[in-house]
């Protein structure tokens, strides 16, 4: 659905996006994580054909960005929720949606139907005749998302949709994104909210001008330190340690009656480890699998790239 290859954008001497290569599949929610100035917004603007690329290739659906003809086709396929909601505050909620429906060349009947559908879905129908300027931040953000959806786009680009929102409003917006995910919309989500990315996204890319890593949240967590199995025993003795050495466990650390070992696939490796301990006469009290967090992965990658 979205494909880039060595996509690069420079502003004078400054490289905002450097050789970005990634692929987002249809129906996938892809999170783009990165600090401020990492190039997230520039990437979205290039993919939405708002600014040109310096080099490389990017395709949205079957259309490659870069020509005016394809730009119009791509813009029909996508919806954009920019980091600033950008609503016409002197127009009502209904008028805001209706205007955008017009810009997407929807018929009167189509606009009427989609305006009503989204305003009801977002709980704004009762406020349809209120000026957008009178709305709370959360309501404005929901309206901005609805505006990006009035033409039923195949791909939705969202740039920091919960930034500057209070926790309740952010929760409402996240729930709406999850609802869109259930509807199998392809969503490209720019965020620096790790918790949000972890909860919503199927895959995450970490960008700091260059793409540092890409994978599912779990893959990214594992990619940093892997996973560890922590076994609490009634007592640790030499036969138990020797039996584990024979299993060739990695990075075994003993702390009192607690043993920690690195594992790649705990579901396969842990039964063997526990069996070896029991066979050596050990008494297992608890077995816990731990992994580094997405935050650890993110911070490590961003610091390495700085």
């Amino acid at each position: 659905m979205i494909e880039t290859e060595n996509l690069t954008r420079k502003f004078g001497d400054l490289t905002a996006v450097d050789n970005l290569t990634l692929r987002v599949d249809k129906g996938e929610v892809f999170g783009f994580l990165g600090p401020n100035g990492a190039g997230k917004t520039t990437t979205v603007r290039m993919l939405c054909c708002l600014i040109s690329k310096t080099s490389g290739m990017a395709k949205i659906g079957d259309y490659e960005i870069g020509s005016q003809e394809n730009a119009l086709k791509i813009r029909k396929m996508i919806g954009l929720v920019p980091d600033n909601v950008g609503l016409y505050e002197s127009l009502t909620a209904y008028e805001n949606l209706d205007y955008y429906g017009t810009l997407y060349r929807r018929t009167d009947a189509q606009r009427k139907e989609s305006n009503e559908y989204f305003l009801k879905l977002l709980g704004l129908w009762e406020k349809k005749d209120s000026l957008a300027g009178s709305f709370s931040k959360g309501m404005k953000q929901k309206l901005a998302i609805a505006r990006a959806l009035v033409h039923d786009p195949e791909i939705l680009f969202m740039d920091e949709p919960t930034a500057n929102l209070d926790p309740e409003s952010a929760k409402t917006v996240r729930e709406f994104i999850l609802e869109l995910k259930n509807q199998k919309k392809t969503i490209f989500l720019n965020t620096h909210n790790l918790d949000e990315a972890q909860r919503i996204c199927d895959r995450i890319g970490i960008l700091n001008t260059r793409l540092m890593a890409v994978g599912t949240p779990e893959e990214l967590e594992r990619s940093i330190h892997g996973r560890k199995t922590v076994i609490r025993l009634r007592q640790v003795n030499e036969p138990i340690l020797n039996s584990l050495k024979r299993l060739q466990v990695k990075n075994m650390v003993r702390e009192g009656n607690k043993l920690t070992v690195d594992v790649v696939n705990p579901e396969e490796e842990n039964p063997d480890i526990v069996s070896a301990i029991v066979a050596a006469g050990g008494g297992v009290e608890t077995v816990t699998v731990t992994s580094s967090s997405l935050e650890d992965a993110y911070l490590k990658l961003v610091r390495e790239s700085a």
Partner: protein
Amino acid sequence: MTTWMPWKIARKELKVISRKRSIIFYTVGLPLLIAAVFSIVVKNQIAHGISATISLGSESIIYLFVILATVLPSTIAAYSIVGEKIEKTLEPLLATPTTDGEILLGKSIAAFIPPILSTWIGASIFMAATDYILYNGGLGYYYFPNWNAGVMLFLLAPLAAILSIEVAVIASSRVSDVRGANQIAGLMFIPFVAVFFAGVEGIFTFSIGNLLIFSGIVTIADVVLFFLSKSTFKREEILTKWK
């Protein structure tokens, strides 16, 4: 470019403008005020005779409405573009499948129609009042409408309005507030005012020939500034270079 899309954009602009009282007051009020004030001036002048009243410069007063046509559209155009910058509505708008030309034309139409209509209405009121005063003063025929007024109102005023909009578009890319854009666009008012004073001083006469020459010069300026404003109003420029 589809022909209807600019009009759809213009309709939305007109809706937004219609909710801005200051712009409505300014756009509608100023031509009416000029019409009322100069109708009173003509009424007072009639006591000095018909020829004195006409020589006061009825054409000069019509020309004041041309000057209005250079002032009023820039306010709306500046608001329409800088207002979008301030409210940060440009990015989602530019992400829609509309062309830069459609957006620019839509905004230009919205900035053109209300000022030119109110200019024509103000001028019509002034001409009707002047005709009434002169006819009853013994002129025996209606002085207005005449060809001079026709050229000024239906040729020069629209061309001046277009020029004003184009300057406002260019100015809007350089500033971040409506007042700033309006002030820059207001510089265009100077040559038109200079022509007015040249008329009052007798250096310039508002003859058909002179008015057509002046209109020709304004047309050339319109064409040059059209290309300049078009090159300014591009998505890439707006998102990366506009202040």
